[in-house]
């Protein structure tokens, strides 16, 4: 009996060690891709040179100003942006899937994308700014941020007065989403072709717009909210078992669900208002991570983040060199990720959602 206990504990410890190793592996891959991606873009510079420019700049050594401009001022913020997008959206997706016990849930399930898009189209097509007196050029970002939080706000508001099940929260989100996207569709179809094209390319999502000036807010919001969500990992694990189990442990499942949903939404909003709605990674990142480390959120959240970062870095590297002037990262990530995900689903067939 005692030996059994010991072996079980040993097995558990070794399984956990494996999980940590996977996370470290993903982080190392991200780090490698982060350096490699600096060498790709329209401006021709070899990967080795780009990396040396990067390290020389950090160490304060003199570098060719032209190289420095491309590598340090354009590609580096973009690479950091890729990490933030991949990690942030994957974490938000993992939390949403866990909260609603639905494999189809993603960061945008509560209508964030439709809200952000409505805000952006108001800015792009009608030149309306929701907050007056903000600096020129930031109205699209601010609009998108504020509007993206309205659907979640409505859900939270309703849940104050009514007991909402996860199901009714999702359905409420869908209702608001349809309402918002129909309004932005009206704006789109009545707009001249050029504004429509602009709005469309905003929605596709791209890392082109990420600059040093936009990074601080994006990074700070992502890091803080990710850490806050990690504190909820244990509670999320219990949520995964079922609302009843949460109640038995003396916690209120609806409260935990709403708090984590708000955190995940803030996290998502902070990203999409800068980049547009980059799809795929928030849905698929957690699924891929779950295949490697299982459903325990203490491992799943970091693994999702590390995998998401690596994946978006990789997709953006390819996006930068394809097409004439590069393609939006969303296109490439779905084009590679779709078949990849299909292959994983067929190959692994390990049903973590049974």
């Amino acid at each position, binding site marked *: 009996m005692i030996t059994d206990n010991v072996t079980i504990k040993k097995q558990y410890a070794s399984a956990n060690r494996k999980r940590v190793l996977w996370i470290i592996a993903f982080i190392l891959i991200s780090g490698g891709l982060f350096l490699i991606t600096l060498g790709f873009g329209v401006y021709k510079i070899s990967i080795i040179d780009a990396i040396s420019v990067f390290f020389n700049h950090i160490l304060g050594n003199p570098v060719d100003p032209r190289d420095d401009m491309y590598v340090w001022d354009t590609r580096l913020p973009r690479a950091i942006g890729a990490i933030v997008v991949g990690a942030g959206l994957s974490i938000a997706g993992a939390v949403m899937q866990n909260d609603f016990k639905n*494999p189809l849930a993603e960061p945008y399930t509560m209508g964030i994308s439709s809200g952000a898009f409505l805000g952006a189209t108001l800015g792009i097509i009608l030149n309306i700014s929701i907050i007056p007196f903000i600096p020129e050029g930031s109205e699209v970002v601010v609009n998108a941020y504020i509007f993206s939080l309205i659907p979640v706000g409505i859900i939270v508001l*309703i849940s104050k007065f009514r007991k909402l099940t996860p*199901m009714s929260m999702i359905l*409420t989100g*869908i*209702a608001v989403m349809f309402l918002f996207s129909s309004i932005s569709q009206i704006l789109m179809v*009545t707009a001249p072709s050029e504004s429509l094209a602009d709005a469309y390319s905003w929605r596709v999502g791209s890392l082109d717009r990420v600059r040093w000036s936009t990074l601080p807010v994006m990074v700070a919001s992502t890091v803080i909210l990710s850490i806050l969500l990690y504190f909820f990992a244990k509670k999320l694990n219990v949520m995964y078992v079922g609302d009843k189990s949460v109640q038995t442990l003396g916690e209120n499942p609806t409260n935990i669900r709403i708090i984590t949903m708000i955190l995940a939404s803030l996290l998502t909003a902070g990203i999409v208002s800068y980049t547009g709605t980059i799809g795929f990674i928030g849905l698929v990142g957690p699924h891929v991570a779950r295949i490697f480390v299982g459903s325990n959120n203490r491992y799943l959240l970091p693994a999702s983040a590390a995998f998401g970062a690596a994946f978006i870095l990789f997709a953006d590297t390819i996006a930068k060199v394809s097409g004439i002037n590069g393609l939006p990262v*969303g296109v490439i990530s779905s*084009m590679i990720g*779709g078949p990849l995900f299909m292959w994983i689903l067929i190959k692994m067939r390990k049903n973590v959602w049974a």
Partner: protein
Amino acid sequence: MYDEKQMNKESVIQEYHRQIFKKIMVLVICIIGIILFVGLFSLSVYDNITITEAYEIIWNHIIGHEYEPRSRYWWADRYIWNTAMPHVVAAFLAGASLAICGTLMQAIMGNPLADPYSTGISSGACFGAVTAIVVGVSFAGVAGELGIVSNAFIGALIPAGLIILISSKIRMTPATLILLGTAISYFFNSMITYLMVTTDADTLKSAYMWQIGNLDGITWSYIPIMLIITVIGTVFVLFMANKLNVMSLGENSAKSLGIDVQRFRTISLIIMAFMTAAIVAFTGIIGFVGLVAPHLVRLVVGSDNKFVMPISMAVGALLLLIADYAAFLLSNIPVGVIMSIIGSPVFLFLIIYHTRKRGVLY
């Protein structure tokens, strides 16, 4: 003691009859609504007649009565029959078909977020249409409007075909099937986006308009295919309603009651693929109705599929007809947009209303 039992039995029977009555009432209201909007639609294309005359003209056309050429009725007949009726019939078929497919998909996937497009049909259809619009390539070798339609139809069947092929080789849970559908639609969507962002602004606009979905391009020549596939599909699906109820108890219960779950699911997917393809090829991607109509109905009449299916069809048809009528009056706004604007507040209201009445939803 005995009396009390008797009372209970009576009240149960009464309650049951009340429920049945409610279901029939919903159906009747939908049918009245549909008839009303057929009349209103007719008036909007030829306003020189009264609504009763409009019904008379439609009826006379159906029974083969012809008017004296160039009389007022003759003109009215021509306008109503050539402009209003294709719209009305297409809206009816599309609404009914998408709604019943949505119900079926939600039932076999056991997921309230599933809709007729869950297996990636919309993205495949859209890819076909966008290829025709942007690149000008037709899979079936026909040009123009028909090229878009045939491309969309063929495109719609690709994702479903892939899923059916894969699921026949490997045993799959509904969750995996949906994820597979999502993966396929992401792939097609990325190709669509690629085509859209690399083309010029005007082509993008016409491709975008197709994507949103509208009934403006419908003529009588398209109706027969839509009608035949929808009717055949619907008959099959309605016969499966009982099995679907068993499925909703869970896969294991269904198996123990003698249902070959895997085969049943595959057959459902094939039927739905054809039904949905036959609609979206002509109308573009009309969202909302397939997802929301079944929920609207379930909120009102409960979840017995024998009732949910026919009533969803009526609700879906009515919803799309109202939206199409409004879209026709506003001329510039696609029907899908109108439907979401009208439908989502109703949906929201029902969710809130029901959570108040019953405490929880479902």
